[in-house]
């Protein structure tokens, strides 16, 4: 199927979607958003399908990240209500005219989970296992008293976790940290 991509100004968002829907692309596949902290914007994407002509339309717009607002598509495409509700919860985009933007999953205290700056409890609440380095331990010198001098090295961080997120606190977050540790295996192998 042909894909027609276009970027529209937020003011044209609803009108352009209404045009496409009236022209036959009236099947809403999805509406989603992408947080872009680098540009200070949130990109909102809607995918409309014209089933008769077998063509697809990817319509994008960009709204200011600090106060993202966009006209709701509920009037033209009632199925957009759920997707807008999700985008509002996950990215904080307010859809003006959507009558029901209640959160679907979150209770509100963690912010918008798909904002890249929102710390995820599952990452903040658990220490990264990769921080451990066997050479941090004083070596067992086998009775010779020999010590290996510690070498300074750059410490890697967990991939995908922004460095500005708070450090792991075992008291916070998921129940994973509370799981009992497995039995020590030293000497078993």
């Amino acid at each position, binding site marked *: 199927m042909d894909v027609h991509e276009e970027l529209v100004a937020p003011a044209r968002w609803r009108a352009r979607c209404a045009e496409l829907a009236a022209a036959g692309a009236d099947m809403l596949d999805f509406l989603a958003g992408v947080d872009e902290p680098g540009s200070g914007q949130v990109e909102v994407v809607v995918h409309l399908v014209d089933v008769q002509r077998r063509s697809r339309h990817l319509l994008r717009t960009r709204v200011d990240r600090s106060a993202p607002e966009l006209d709701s598509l509920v009037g033209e495409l009632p199925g957009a209500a759920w997707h807008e509700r999700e985008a509002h919860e996950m990215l904080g985009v307010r859809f003006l005219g959507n009558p029901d933007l209640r959160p679907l999953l979150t209770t509100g205290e963690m912010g918008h989970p798909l904002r890249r700056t929102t710390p995820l409890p599952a990452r903040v609440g*658990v220490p*990264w*296992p*990769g921080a*451990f*380095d*066997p*050479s941090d*331990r004083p*070596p*067992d*010198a*086998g009775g*010779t008293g*020999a*010590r*290996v001098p510690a070498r300074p090295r750059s410490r*890697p961080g*967990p*991939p*995908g976790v922004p460095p500005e997120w708070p450090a792991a606190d075992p008291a916070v977050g998921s129940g*994973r940290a509370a*799981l*009992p540790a*497995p*039995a*020590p*295996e*030293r000497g*078993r*192998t």
Partner: protein
Amino acid sequence: MSAHARIALSAEACTSCMICVRECPTWCITLDAHQEVVGDPGARRPRTTNVLDSFTIDWGLCMYCGICVEVCPFDALHWRPDAVSATGRADGLRHGIAQLAD
């Protein structure tokens, strides 16, 4: 192609290099190790080797992506075809060296 049902560890091939632990997207692998001096104890710079103490995969977190198998430089991790068995406790999904051996 063999079945990708679970991941097994050859503990004798593992050098505790931590690459699998650091690459795992779900943080499901933990390992503990210490260093031991090997070779001539009178050498000016003692040579050390890592000794693996424990290696745990939490199958409740693992998404079976196989990145750890791919990145292991010593082929200490590999796929095996039998599935992880069910358990009545969450920590029953945390398998150590003995259960990960094949």
